[in-house]
């Protein structure tokens, strides 16, 4: 099977115009990410890692340069299409878990499913996903604040997977976890990568970056080669 890039960046630049002067968060990043790759993005704080991930996750549109997701130029997509892309093709995993506090663990995972299918899950898909992450039915009915950090991150991973996206974007997924829990989460991500999912992960931790096939290092918005 011939690999083709799921994500392609062509001289992507992101400038934040501020009263004190423009901040160039990304400065001409060109990058090809093949399907099934596991990529770690590293670099000092403020170098533009999250900014890069936000562009890839179509939460933001580059100031200049082109970004292709599944060969579609996101510049040609409106907000509605970008939102649909986030719902169906990309799974997000955040450092702060970012579960919806009003919903139970189960409902948090089911939420993107309902947004996409317009009806609740009757197939047991959500329950299976949660079980796969080690969250049993009793825990599923808890609200996020009642769960430990590791449990919340597992729920967040289940949520990211519920619409079966090709790509997972993780912004310091282990940043708020102790090293042992972090390791478990990384094992899970590794398994998901082995199943064929593309993973792009920002991290500070070289040990965490070890799980990746390839590491990209950023400095002041540029890629070090």
């Amino acid at each position, binding site marked *: 099977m011939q690999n083709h890039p799921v994500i392609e960046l062509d001289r992507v630049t992101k400038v934040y115009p501020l009263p004190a002067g423009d901040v160039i968060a990304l400065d001409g990043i060109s990058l090809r990410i093949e399907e099934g790759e596991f990529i770690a993005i590293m670099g000092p704080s403020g170098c533009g890692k999250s900014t890069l991930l936000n562009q890839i996750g179509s939460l933001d549109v580059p100031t200049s340069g082109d970004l292709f997701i599944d060969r579609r130029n996101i510049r040609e997509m409106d907000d509605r299409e970008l939102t649909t892309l986030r719902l169906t093709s990309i799974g997000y995993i955040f450092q702060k878990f970012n579960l919806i506090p009003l919903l139970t663990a189960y409902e948090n995972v089911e939420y993107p499913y309902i947004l*996409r299918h317009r009806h609740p899950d009757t197939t047991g898909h959500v329950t299976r996903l949660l079980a796969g992450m080690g969250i049993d039915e009793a825990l599923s009915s808890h609200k996020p604040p009642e769960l430990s950090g590791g449990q919340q991150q597992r729920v967040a991973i289940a949520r990211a997977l519920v619409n079966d996206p090709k790509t997972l974007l993780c912004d310091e997924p282990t940043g708020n976890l102790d090293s042992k829990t972090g390791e478990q989460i990384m094992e899970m991500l590794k398994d998901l990568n082995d199943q064929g999912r593309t993973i792009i992960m920002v991290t500070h931790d070289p040990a965490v970056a070890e799980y990746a096939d390839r590491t990209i290092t950023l400095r002041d918005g540029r890629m070090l080669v």
Partner: protein
Amino acid sequence: MRGDIIFQLSVRSVRLHFLRSVLAALGIVIGVVAIASMGMMGANMTLSVTEELSDMANILVVNAYTGGGGGGMMRIGGGGSSGNDNYLSDDNFEDIKRIASKYGLVYALYSDSDIIEIGSDTGRATIYGLDPAVMPEILTLTDGAYPKSTNSVLIGPQLAERWELKIGSRIDIGDSDEGSTTTVRVVGILEERGMSMDLSTDSAIVGTEKLFIGIYDTEGEYGQVTIVLDDIDDADTVTGEIEDELNKKEDVVTVSDSSRMMETITSTLGTLTAFVMAIAGISLIVAAVSIFNVMMMSVTERIREIGILRSIGTQKEEVRRMFIYEAAILGIVGAGIGAVASLVLGYLFVLIMVGTTEYFFAPASVMYVPMAMIIGVIICIISGVYPAWRAADLDPIEALRAE
């Protein structure tokens, strides 16, 4: 989590901030109650007045022409207008009688308002002077008999109750400080008559013409002439004939029937009701401000949550809908409670202010409840539009960075 997930989120947000939501909805409750009960009160007044007036559709009242508009509220009951120099003369009365007596009963009425003294108490009442022969035809007694002598009078039930008057009680008419009082004796109590086209006797004193002329020396200066028609269908004919005859050269008389009065009263009550409802509506504006405030708070508190929702694929329009739902829930709950409360309070209001709840459940009355509810809900939704729009337009990245 069944059904609409966006709606579920709105419901939970309202529930999470239950007290705050209840307080915001309270404004809507008050607004809905105010509008609905004012509207119902107006409607009930109109309905009961209309009903009473249509009972006397067979009555025509002829007054001296006073120039301008003619008719109107001031003419209700004909009496009480002391200081009015416009009288009908004996000639007028004779002319009217000649024209109208073949259609029904025609009688002239003296009326004035004066100070009365009962024992040591002083008050004011309308005094009517009537032909004793006419009295049994138009007035019903609950007690006593019709006056046979000059100093005998009939009194209305409200007057009797207020002054604790009985058959045989004495009333001094006139101001004793000015030295000229006439003492009369109550010989009969009138039946409650309510609002009326021709004369309002409920709190009046009705004496003979002779008594009236004796006190006021106004022989041949009638306040009004009344025609009680045998057949309602003659109203236009009689009105036309009288006007043709008496107003040939110049306008001398005005003939009013109850339909014209009904129109005036209905439209006056309508204006009044609209005005009072508009004032009640101000409470809804206050409510709108508090809903707006609560919605803005909800948006501000949930910026991060909005960022999460957006980042995992929630459309702008869905976020907007979530907050509009929230405002609508507050509105619907508030309007629902308001509706129940306005049925209860409105009923009491109408009972106290109108005196009867006979028409309370008439469509024209209860329709104010759904109307006020709809206004309340719409106001809520409008108050939620800007906050919802703000929420939906947040930049997802900025929102995610919020604490």
